[in-house]
């Protein structure tokens, strides 16, 4: 280390101006990853492999079409487009997302993430820097395959509008998945787990999630490129086959949102941008303050309400035409629905009502985890409040209890689920079928005991206790009930009684009760409502106990934070959040 060389000059800390955040190529973090991930040595091999595979796909598909399939040249040029798209999807969606999640976790592992926190760039610039910087190699590899795609689109006479919408959604989907990876990388501490979790999310989006769309959750389809790919399909295959597909497509609905109809591409981009903004908001909060919850309480409620609205908005218009029912997906291929002899079965209505309830409960749990403070956060909040001579915590702040917000979400969830169930059960497909008046209290009880009970354990006793409760109350009773039903077919009622302990089974049973239990044996007809109401009433009692324990825990935390004098016995109006001034 030298001691007398360069001038330091500490009096001029003023930097030159930062480029606007949208100038991604000037973002320092993007440029940093251009250095590290685009070195000729590492990139060269990846480029070679990518060009070999994409070249093979292109020439093999084209040659086979011309020489084996005896297609016209225009049709032959199109045949490589879909395999190339799949290959590009593997690179950008799977590898890119894994790289983003793993790269972000590696930054934390190495400890260099603190340097980026210290950089005086805006949080948004940092989020965008990582979003586009970490998968920079994957973007370059996809670009390397584009000459083959552009050739196919040009010589295959694919309309430019179709090409633009397909690849536009391809890239917005990529950004959405990378953002998911970035969130996973920020939250998950282990690099390998972050890598696997994020890739699993993408994998599920293209395997399991589309199946959920067949069970009423149509919205999830718009998180993939599938709707736009289906719309573009006729232009990516042989022209004669494409014309046939267009005639079938004319019978299918556009993207519906209540009474509005949109082209698939518009609704897909709209849906994805809404989620991209939410993801950016999460990361922005974390970059601004490392200890922040991923979502603020108000934003979280809005996200929950928004998801309920889009689920309903997409699903309700498809009930009367019948497109929402699972068997319709199958019959679309058999052509039976076009001859008019198709109608949904009542079990299908039950299945989609259960699916909606389960997704609501799952969403409720996920957001509850995001906005619920742990004891340490609460304690810090209270200490700060007491120092500032305040006897309350701002209800929107991270340390404040999330109880009122979970209650709000439960209310929204019950309303959404009820509206959905009523529309499905009372559709013209099921003449004379009415949603039972007990549906509303049944749905309310399920989400109350399941949602608020989970919250009370999470906030009062911590994440580990909540996780164990989810396993031993949520899953194990269903497993035990299933085994009981399997080992002895004559024990369906005890199996129901056992399984009904779980809130997840509660979703199933409440839906059954709401539809009047058609087509069940007399034994089950008696057991299902009895088991349901018994466990729900017991659940409410347990919930009351847990809520009281939570109030006590909140109050204890507030007292521990106050190092001056203990507070008198509880008399606060809002779940222990308001305390006597002092």
């Amino acid at each position, binding site marked *: *280390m*030298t*001691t007398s060389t360069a001038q330091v*000059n500490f009096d001029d800390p003023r930097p*030159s101006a930062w480029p606007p955040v949208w100038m991604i190529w000037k973002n320092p973090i993007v440029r940093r990853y251009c*250095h*590290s991930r685009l070195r000729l040595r590492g990139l060269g091999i990846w480029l070679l492999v990518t060009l070999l595979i994409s070249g093979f796909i292109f020439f093999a598909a084209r040659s086979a079409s011309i020489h084996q399939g005896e297609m016209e040249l225009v049709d032959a040029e199109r045949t490589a487009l879909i395999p190339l798209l799949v290959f590009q999807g593997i690179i950008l969606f799977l590898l890119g997302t894994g790289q983003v999640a793993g790269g972000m976790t590696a930054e934390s592992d190495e400890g260099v993430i603190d*340097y980026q926190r210290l950089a005086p760039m805006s949080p948004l610039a940092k989020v965008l820097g990582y979003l586009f910087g970490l998968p920079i190699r994957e973007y370059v590899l996809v670009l390397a395959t584009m000459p083959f795609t552009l050739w196919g689109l040009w010589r295959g006479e694919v309309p430019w509008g179709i090409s633009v919408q397909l690849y536009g959604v391809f890239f917005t989907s990529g950004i959405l998945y990378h953002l998911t990876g970035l969130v996973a990388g920020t939250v998950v501490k282990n690099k390998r787990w972050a890598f696997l979790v994020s890739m699993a999310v993408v994998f599920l989006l293209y395997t399991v999630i589309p199946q959920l769309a067949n069970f009423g959750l149509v919205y999830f389809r718009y998180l993939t490129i599938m709707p736009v790919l289906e719309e573009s399909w006729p232009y990516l295959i042989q022209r004669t086959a494409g014309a046939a597909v267009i005639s079938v497509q004319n019978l299918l609905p556009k993207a519906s949102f209540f009474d509005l109809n949109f082209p698939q591409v518009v609704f897909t981009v709209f849906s994805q941008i809404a989620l991209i903004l939410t993801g950016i908001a999460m990361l922005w909060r974390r970059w601004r303050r490392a200890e922040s919850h991923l979502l603020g309480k108000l934003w979280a409620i809005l996200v929950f309400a928004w998801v309920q609205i889009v689920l309903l908005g997409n699903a309700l218009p498809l009930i009367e035409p019948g497109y929402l029912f699972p068997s319709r997906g199958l019959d679309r291929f058999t052509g039976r629905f076009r001859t008019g002899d198709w109608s949904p079965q009542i079990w299908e209505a039950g299945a989609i009502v259960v699916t909606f309830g389960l997704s609501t409960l799952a969403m409720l749990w996920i957001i509850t985890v995001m906005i619920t403070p742990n004891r340490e956060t609460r304690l810090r909040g209270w200490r700060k409040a007491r*120092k500032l001579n305040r006897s309350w915590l701002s209800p929107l702040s991270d340390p404040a209890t999330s109880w009122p917000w979970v209650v709000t979400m439960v209310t929204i969830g019950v309303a959404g689920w009820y509206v959905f169930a009523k529309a499905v059960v009372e559709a013209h497909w099921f003449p004379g079928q009415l949603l039972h008046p007990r549906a509303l209290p049944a749905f309310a009880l399920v989400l109350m005991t399941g949602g608020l009970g989970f919250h009370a354990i999470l906030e009062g006793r911590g994440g580990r206790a909540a996780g164990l409760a989810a396993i031993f109350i949520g899953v194990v009773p269903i497993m035990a009930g299933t085994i009981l039903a399997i080992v002895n077919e004559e024990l369906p009622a005890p199996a129901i009684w056992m399984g009904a302990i779980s809130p997840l089974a509660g979703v199933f049973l409440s839906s059954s009760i709401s539809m009047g239990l058609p087509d069940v044996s007399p034994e089950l007809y008696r057991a299902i409502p009895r088991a349901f109401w018994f466990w729900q009433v017991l659940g409410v009692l347990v919930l009351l106990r847990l809520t009281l324990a939570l109030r006590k825990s909140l109050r204890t935390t507030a007292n521990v934070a106050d190092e001056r004098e203990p507070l008198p016995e509880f008399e606060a109006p809002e779940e222990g959040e308001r305390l006597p001034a002092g």
Partner: protein
Amino acid sequence: MKNGIDEAISIRELRVDYGDFVAVRDISMSIPWGEVYGLVGPNGAGKTSTFQVLATLMEPTYGEVTVAGYDVLEQTSGARRVMGYMPDLAPVPSDLKAWEFLDFHADTHALGGRRDRRKRVDECLEIAGLREKRNAWCRALSRGQTQRLVLAKTLLHRPQVLILDEPASGLDPLARRELRLALQRLAADGATVIVSSHILSELAEMCSLLCVMSDGQLLASGTVEDVRRELGRSERQITVTPVNGAGKVREWLDDRGGVGAVREVESKVHFSFQGSDEEQAELMAAMMASGVRIKAFEESGSSFEEILIDVAERSRGQ
């Protein structure tokens, strides 16, 4: 005063909690411009938590903290522009070369175009004595070189306030000496440096002001002598080498006020003395006046390590 700001760093009633553990307990301090300020204390004293709050990396439970006049909670971006932070066991990315690492951070601080950045990168590599390692991979650097590279990174944007958490850890004695000289030169150039170290004697040599922390509390602050006095260890060790027999000196010292633990070792007399400089001068004059002929005498204070070990033990005992 600099740019109308009185203090480089101001901390008022800072508290940091980890659950029930109080890492920093309502401390206040202010650090003037141009000082090398040392933060000393045993492990778990709260030094790193204090540094992390100063560096805007951690939100305190409460407290007001300003760096160069910027509130670290409300004006985070401004504070980050004027400060440089070097963490304990400073990490570096494994996938960048030394110059790329510095160039990236120069870019994040918007230090101009490519040419300006490269010039500044080379300057800082020169300051850190790493010019010959410019193209080396960060992962290939030794621990000491890594520390110096991160110090170079910390200096890139010409920070007015440098916050260095254990910067000497991993450095060999020569590099430590160079670091000490470099920090003193940076302070002379106008920077304010706040530094923590577990090598306490070195910190005492390096810093113009010191502050001792233990169990999240400030125990003493000021110059090294102030701290020594404040911690109640103003006792000095005096060694006298008489010409005509150590026994006579030992006898004379017995029962003198302020004198304790008199020992005779190989014609030398060692004793401790508790008192002011004036009282010590009077004692020596009286000894000479009594006819004792003294060839040499030597004074030493309690070592700083001893003081801090004592403080830490007392603190734990409480």
